[in-house]
């Protein structure tokens, strides 16, 4: 494709963007709102993920041993559990260590004169928090294990929340994207209509379909691109504000730093342009069969 041809395409695109400026603005607004809604849900879920990673290190399995288990068997159990591929770390906590820890938490006085009621135990960390439940089940089956405990439910719930946040965000984005495609295709239809005479002349002269199509595709993509830039700007500002507010007021929650958001910006630009291209290709189709 010649440079001159591309110049021509861009000139045509910008001319009609300005000619239909109100429709252009509506299209940009539609794309921007679609992406802002999606982006909010995305950021929410990403932050849940981030917080979960933080919690993750605290998600560990405690396996309590029966009191009858001998020293030798403990060593064997230790080896066996460590051999489970998902297990990252295993630490033996003896009765004595457990009570010391407990005393520290509740105060020495309270436990004065009582025989140590705590069992020996293992503390186990796994590679992937998704696997906690499965690993816990495996450990439970070993002989000599009395009881296995882990943050049952909490992990699953968190994963569920993240999953649903993503799904809801995605669903809303799809609806908004359809609305954007519809609005953009209407905008482009105006342009196509304004230039229908030119298009038919072009076709008679021997223009290829793509030659006719490009200016409209570019127009749609520019609309999508500007829309996504607006969305990125709004989200970045809002997130920055949120991040600072949370940091100052609720210091125990640490949100994903703002830089993490920029990773998604490129994707947003892509989605915006795709929406624009889709919208415009719907409007041109009919006019090409001359």
């Amino acid at each position, binding site marked *: *494709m*010649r440079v*001159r*041809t591309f110049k*021509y395409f861009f000139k045509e695109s910008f001319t009609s963007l300005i000619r239909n400026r109100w429709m252009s603005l509506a299209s940009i607004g539609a794309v921007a709102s679609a992406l802002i809604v999606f982006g909010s849900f995305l950021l929410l879920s990403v932050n849940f993920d981030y917080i979960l990673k933080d919690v993750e290190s605290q998600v560990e399995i405690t396996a309590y041993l029966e009191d009858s288990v001998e020293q030798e068997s403990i060593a064997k159990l230790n080896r066996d559990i460590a051999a489970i591929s998902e297990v990252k770390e295993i630490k033996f906590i003896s009765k004595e260590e457990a009570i010391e820890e407990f005393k520290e938490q509740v105060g020495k006085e309270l436990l004065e004169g009582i025989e140590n009621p705590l069992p020996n135990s293992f503390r186990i960390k796994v590679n992937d928090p998704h696997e906690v439940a499965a690993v816990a089940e495996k450990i439970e089956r070993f002989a000599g294990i009395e009881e296995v405990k882990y943050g049952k439910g909490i992990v699953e719930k968190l994963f569920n929340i993240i999953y649903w946040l993503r799904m809801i965000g995605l669903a809303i984005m799809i609806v908004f994207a359809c609305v954007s495609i519809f609005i953009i295709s209407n905008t482009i239809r105006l342009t196509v209509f304004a230039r229908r*005479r*030119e298009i*038919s*002349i*072009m*076709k*008679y*002269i*021997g*223009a*290829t*379909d793509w*030659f006719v199509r490009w200016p409209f595709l570019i127009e749609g993509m520019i609309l999508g691109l500007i829309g996504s830039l607006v969305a990125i700007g709004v989200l970045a500002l809002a997130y920055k504000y949120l991040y600072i507010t949370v940091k100052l007021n609720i210091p125990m929650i640490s949100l994903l730093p703002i830089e993490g958001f920029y990773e998604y910006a490129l994707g947003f630009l892509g989605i915006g342009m795709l929406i624009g291209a889709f919208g415009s290709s719907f409007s041109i189709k009919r006019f090409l*069969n*001359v």
Partner: protein
Amino acid sequence: MLIEMYGVTKVYPGGQIALKDINLKICKGEFVFIVGPSGAGKSTLIKLIFREEVPTKGQIFFAGKNITRLRHREVPHLRRRIGIVFQDFRLLPEKTVYENVAFAMEVVEAHTREIRKRVPLVLERVGLLHKAKAKPSELSGGEQQRVALARALVNNPDILVADEPTGNLDPETAWDIMGLLDDINKRGTTIIVASHAKELVDSMKKRVIQLENGSLVRDEERGVYNCESKDF
């Protein structure tokens, strides 16, 4: 042989029969009129040549290639070999005369250098170089049709196809346009003109194909024309 039609029939979706079993051959370099009353099928015949319409039955060859089986994306390449002129000129009102003609070259992605060289040349040929900067609305009907002719010629087509090119013009201007077409023909471009201006056609002393109710009723050659000698 530039155009060959064999048993061409065209029935429109509504059931209206526009052309019935047309057989004809047009050589390179010929000047052919297609005449007949309104609705006889002149426009349909013209549209079949640049493939705005596809025949219901029969075959059409352009320069030896069967264009009835042309794929959609091959159509532009056929049209680049055909210059098309309409009764209503079909110029772009917001572009100047020069830009209207240059547009035809931009569309087929010609080099800028080529466009700058070729457009004034063609405008000169239709006698409108001095109005290059005018807008179509500032021109008379005859001048507008000359611009349309220049646009049709600028890409150096094998054939010029005109559907009622003088239909919107007064008789005197119509004569000018016909003279210009004759001139273009003498330089080697094949020309097909659909017209119902009987006097004008008769006085041109060219081959006349007459249509009536979609049938070819007369194909008359005035003057001797040897297809073989000009065919290569």
